[in-house]
């Protein structure tokens, strides 16, 4: 399973493609692609967003479902979704709470 992530052009904020085709600031709102067709659809939206200069650095992230939530397999992406592990007051975890962000 995959989710599509990027950074918002204007401020660099890490964002994830949501089911309504918007770019969400939290991974909890990420749309999960469970098959190649869904991936292709999301990839096309990502390309459109890139071309529209909404986001940069668009990439798929491998995830697994844990208690119904998409959790990245790589630590790198879990840190992106939460914030620096040494500063719980920074990044998305600062306003979401570390548990729900990661």
């Amino acid at each position, binding site marked *: 399973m995959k989710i599509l992530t990027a*950074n918002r*052009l*204007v*401020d*660099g*904020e*890490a964002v994830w493609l949501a089911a309504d085709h918007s770019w969400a600031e939290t991974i909890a709102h990420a749309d999960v692609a469970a098959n190649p067709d869904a991936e292709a659809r999301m990839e096309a939206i990502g390309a459109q967003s*890139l071309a*529209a*200069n909404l986001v*940069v*650095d668009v990439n798929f992230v491998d995830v697994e479902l844990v208690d119904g939530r998409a959790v990245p*397999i*790589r*630590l*790198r992406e879990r*840190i*992106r979704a939460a*914030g*620096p*592990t*040494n*500063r719980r007051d*920074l*990044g998305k975890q600062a306003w979401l709470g570390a548990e729900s962000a990661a």
Partner: protein
Amino acid sequence: MYRYDEFDHAFVAERVAQFRDQAERRLAGELTEDQFKPLRLMNGVYLQLHAYMLRIAIPYGTLSSKQMRMLAHIARTYDKGYGHFTTRQNLQFNWPALKDIPAILEELASVEMHAIQTSGNCIRNVTADHFAGAAADEFADPRPYAEILRQWSSVHPEFSYLPRKFKIAVTGAEHDRAAIQTHDIGLHVKKDGNGKLGFAVYVGGGQGRTPMVAKLIRDFLPEEDLLTYTTAIMRVYNLHGRRDNKYKARIKILVHETGTEELTRQVEAEFAALKLSSEELKLPAADIRAIERYFAPPALAERADGWAAVAAERKANAGFDAWLRRNIHEHRHPDYASVTISLKGIGEVPGDATDAQMDAVADLAEQFAFDEIRVSHEQNLILPHVARADLKAVYDALVAIGLHTPNAGLVTDIIACPGLDYCALANARSISVAQEISTRFGDQRRQEEIGDLKIKISGCINACGHHHVGHIGILGVEKKGTELYQITLGGSADENTSVGQIVGRGFTAEEITDAIETVVDTYLANRADKSEDFLVAYRRLGAAPFKEALYGREVRAA
């Protein structure tokens, strides 16, 4: 300190205006990311894990109070209230918005700072000994030469698109505190038999995935030939350096593949040709002396009263006494000292300083240190000229802002790159490992019992945390989705530079601090006496006792 002339001001202002226009066009969609990326990188703007990152140049690590206050202001106004001092003597902000960066650059320009050439395949910030102009063991202040190189290399048309990035370091002391042998070019200021100033020239040092110690290619280069010879090196590199493989593009690979003797021959031939064709690059003595005047030492009044005052205060205050033992460096004037302000509080993030701490350090520099601050490549701050009579006042002020940790050069004075907590290139975290080791060894008596020991941690093979030259180096890698840490031993970045050797299989994040403790305990158990520091002991003992301690059963089974 160097002060901008009208050309410098105009140049930096023009670059700010250019970048403002470029950023606006990018945000308006007139430039694509492919078009914009090289432009933002030329101005120090990276995209990292969580946000953009802005890397600001601090030439040869020298800052005024005014400049430090501006960094504090930017941290407070545009970022998240802190900055990260790096192993390149620069400062990074981890959270700026692209839309704000032109304003940040404009604010920086108002205090004669910028972010130009902090990225890209060009000549980067020239670094120098952080005790330059102050150290008792110095032949000559390296900063005038670093400044000459900075001016010469700034948007140099021939050397702005090199095969790869290029780093130059200069030291003017016998003891190398600038790690010159780990740089593409290392310059050691020295005098010849007639007392004439010049340089020993080292080429081809570097870390990354292929660590190399630089080779001495000229024992003495007269100072007037600095730019001619450097140009000759750059031309040979620019012509023959590989552009087909970024992992083999640094000059260290060219030196290695060409051979030191042949490369030296090529450089000397180019040098001779340059000298014959034109005297344009020859440095007139008057110009060198003019630059030197910017770095003229402050007028240091006799302050002999400091000796007795310090002696009395240290008897009464154990914390001050420990701080004097570790964080004071001998100054060329006996009534003065250079102070290391540790940015390595126990369990803290190496190199981070809050806006309030930056402001407070600026105040201290203004009040007690002739308005001068240095950034060391070891990620600490330095007040280069402090009267001994003022040391207690400086210490008390540092206590008030939590920057009084007496650990310079000790096991908790750890270099660490930002690692996976921030960096898009990293494979593993560095900061959290540094924090855990720092906490484990935080007891002052234990640290001092261990003595001088440099631990350096990188979160990927690019080695921004200098792990190859740590007495104990730690390299974080990703293996099967988890962090794994390799230990290297015996590295060093001084005048006897050496690359550390991998000691064996890696350790998980949960195991690495215990493994480091095992290494340290093995040293303590095997050192000849307390005067034999870790590196000397390792060079005498070799890796065997450390391997046995770390992997005993596995080593014996093999």
